[in-house]
């Protein structure tokens, strides 16, 4: 028997609201199965489990606020699964800051360690559910029609109908009391819990803590993107639009391989010391359409091919914007990359997301004069900028890292 604990879905998370159980006592679960929906300031997340077994007991009820590290469910070993001890996670809320990697802190087991061992399959990273978790909520046809007429999002309402469905009357009541999506009448529905105000506060807390505690140092390098872009163009011309790669995949892969060379940037600053990340799980900053920012992880980026990475990235961005992120994607990024894309600024000097120890930014790719072999030519260039925690590394390491990123981007064929 082992315990499954409320994961920490971000450094600033102390507790989460259990919105919905997706399993029952007796349900068989496998690694990667989504077992619950948990809502935090950042929205609703699908909590996935990291080991195989049978749910023996649910220790929290829907609607309950559960501190990080408290027991959510008890798991009995299934016939095949090896019996594991408690999935070790912070035993108290304070510990959330120490151990964001709930699952990966588990005792060694082939399952739990797959992150740092063999390459994980892309399929595990791609949600079969697609964006959003609307399927969890039931809204009757009459309620949907009425909600559309009144301009109310029925998925934010508490349902009183059959099977807790949101009914016509629920929508009318919500309308009568001027309750819209901004201030839900009851518990928000899974996948729809995003609240711009709360997210603003969460970002404020994390960024204030970062600037208060982390002695940042900053390095920038300007990189010639000529070789990468021409390779990308050749690669993409032979492919259908949905198989084409974006420069972001090259940035991510180069970053991951550079982190292999400079591992002191990949990990966490906890309890006055550096703890290396157990894999190269890179948080990818996604700006949300309603405002706000989230940086869920792409796991084991260093082991993925570029097409795999593109698929994972697309899926991750869609789910970040539509709801349906997994807890594992929130708990364990060990480094963060920000890419401003085509419409961004030339350069971004990032703020480290604690307890990570570094973040890398890529500005807009733009054509600039570039000197090679004594001649000035027009080249596409990008400014890469590293913000790193001086407690965990020094400028020398940061310099080596940026040089590695530059070198890797000159040889895209090897990525």
């Amino acid at each position: 028997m082992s315990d499954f604990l409320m994961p920490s879905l971000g450094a600033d998370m102390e507790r989460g609201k259990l919105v919905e159980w997706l399993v029952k006592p007796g349900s068989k679960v496998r690694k990667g199965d989504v077992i619950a929906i948990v809502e935090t300031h950042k929205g609703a997340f699908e909590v996935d489990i990291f080991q195989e077994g049978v749910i023996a007991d649910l220790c929290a009820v829907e609607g309950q606020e559960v501190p990080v590290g408290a027991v959510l469910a008890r798991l009995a070993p299934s016939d095949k699964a090896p019996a594991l001890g408690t999935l070790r996670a912070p035993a108290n809320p304070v510990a959330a800051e120490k151990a964001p990697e709930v699952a990966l802190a588990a005792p060694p087991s082939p399952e739990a360690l797959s992150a740092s061992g063999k390459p994980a399959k892309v399929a595990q990273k791609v949600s079969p559910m697609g964006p959003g978790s609307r399927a969890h909520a039931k809204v009757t046809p009459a309620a949907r029609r009425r909600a559309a007429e009144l301009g109310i999002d029925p998925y934010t309402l508490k349902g009183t109908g059959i099977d807790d469905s949101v009914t016509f009357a629920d929508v009318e009541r919500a309308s009568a009391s001027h309750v819209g999506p901004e201030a839900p009448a009851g518990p928000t529905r899974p996948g729809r819990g995003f609240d711009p105000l709360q997210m603003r506060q969460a970002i404020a807390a994390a960024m204030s803590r970062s600037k208060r505690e982390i002695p940042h140092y900053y390095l920038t390098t300007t990189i010639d993107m000529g070789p990468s872009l021409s390779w990308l163009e050749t690669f993409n011309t032979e492919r259908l639009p949905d198989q084409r790669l974006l420069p972001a995949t090259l940035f991510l892969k180069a970053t991951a391989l550079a982190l292999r060379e400079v591992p002191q940037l990949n990990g966490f600053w906890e309890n006055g010391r550096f703890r290396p990340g157990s894999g190269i799980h890179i948080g990818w900053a996604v700006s949300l359409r309603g405002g706000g920012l989230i940086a869920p992880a792409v796991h084991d980026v260093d082991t993925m091919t570029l097409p795999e990475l593109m698929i994972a990235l697309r899926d991750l961005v869609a789910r970040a914007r539509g709801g349906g992120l997994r807890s594992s994607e929130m708990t364990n990024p060990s480094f963060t990359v920000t890419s401003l894309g085509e419409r961004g600024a030339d350069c971004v000097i990032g703020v480290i997301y604690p307890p990570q120890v570094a973040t890398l930014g890529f500005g807009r790719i733009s054509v600039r004069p570039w000197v090679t072999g004594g001649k000035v030519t027009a080249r596409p260039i990008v400014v890469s900028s590293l913000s790193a925690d001086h407690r965990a590394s020094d400028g020398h390491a940061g310099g080596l890292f940026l040089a590695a990123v530059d070198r890797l981007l000159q040889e895209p064929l090897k990525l």
Partner: protein
Amino acid sequence: MSSPVAKPVRMSYREACRQAIRDALTNDPRTFLMGEDVGLYGGCYAVTKGLLDEFGPRRIRDTPLSESAFVGAGIGAAIAGMHPIVEIMTCNFSLLALDQLLNNAASIAHMSGGQFAVPLVIRMATGAGRQLAAQHSHSLEGWYAHIPGLKVLAPGTVEDARHMLRSALADPNPVLIFEHIVLYNVEDELDPAVESVDIGSAKIRRPGRDVSVLAYGNSLPKALAAADTLAKEGIEAEVVDIRVLRPLDNATIFESVTRTRRCIIVDEGWKSGSISAEIAARLSENLFFELDAPIRRICSREVPIPYSRHMEEAALPQTSAIIESARTLIGSR
């Protein structure tokens, strides 16, 4: 002139059926009654008792035990200008006359290009609840409601039993009337001001705002009893007597369900392929966006209706199931 306000008369459903036949025989010389044991024996459910003495053997005719023969004879008489009433002892036995009903009665007007009308009324007993076992207890009216060219009526009140026959006889096409065996003993007061009922529309028997309970025949009193209980809990069920199974009165049914947004259909037929299935399909085809809960059906268990009392009760739609279903559909509010 009699008194300006006639007094309500209390009578049984059986008596109402008998008086309807008496009226028809009295008012129209083209009308006669035939069937098994309708004369000397007075009808196996005693509906026609005394009519032989009153109208004589030319107009109250006992027939051999051959449904195909006497239904066929009735169709022939109707084509020839009579307005016969044919009684089939129970709808289970009507299957022996199915060929006459479908291939002749329902089809001749169409196949003759409208040259031959079949103004025939067939009465038959239907339903379970009197421990008559499988061969005398089934509800097959839903099958007949499948057939174009037939009109299918299911009187669920004494008033409809009293007045539907006249409207049916006035119809130029074959009309089947299904009289429920449990209802024969039910008594009610007849409003003397009502002299006819229409056989084209369903009727709201009890208005309500929360859920529409559609029922017919002997399911109607069960639905009304359920509505009484539910009202004490604050749930206002609207009871709609479907009563015309073919052609279904979409307008009344849709109007009710549009208002209540929830629907329970009570049907003593088996659920698969039943009239309740047809109604549920029409509701989802036409009112999908009005619904606030899934449509629920309460039907007979899919078994030959058992003989023993407790098993027969368990096999039939019951008031308690209607109540439970309504509570579930309405949720916690």
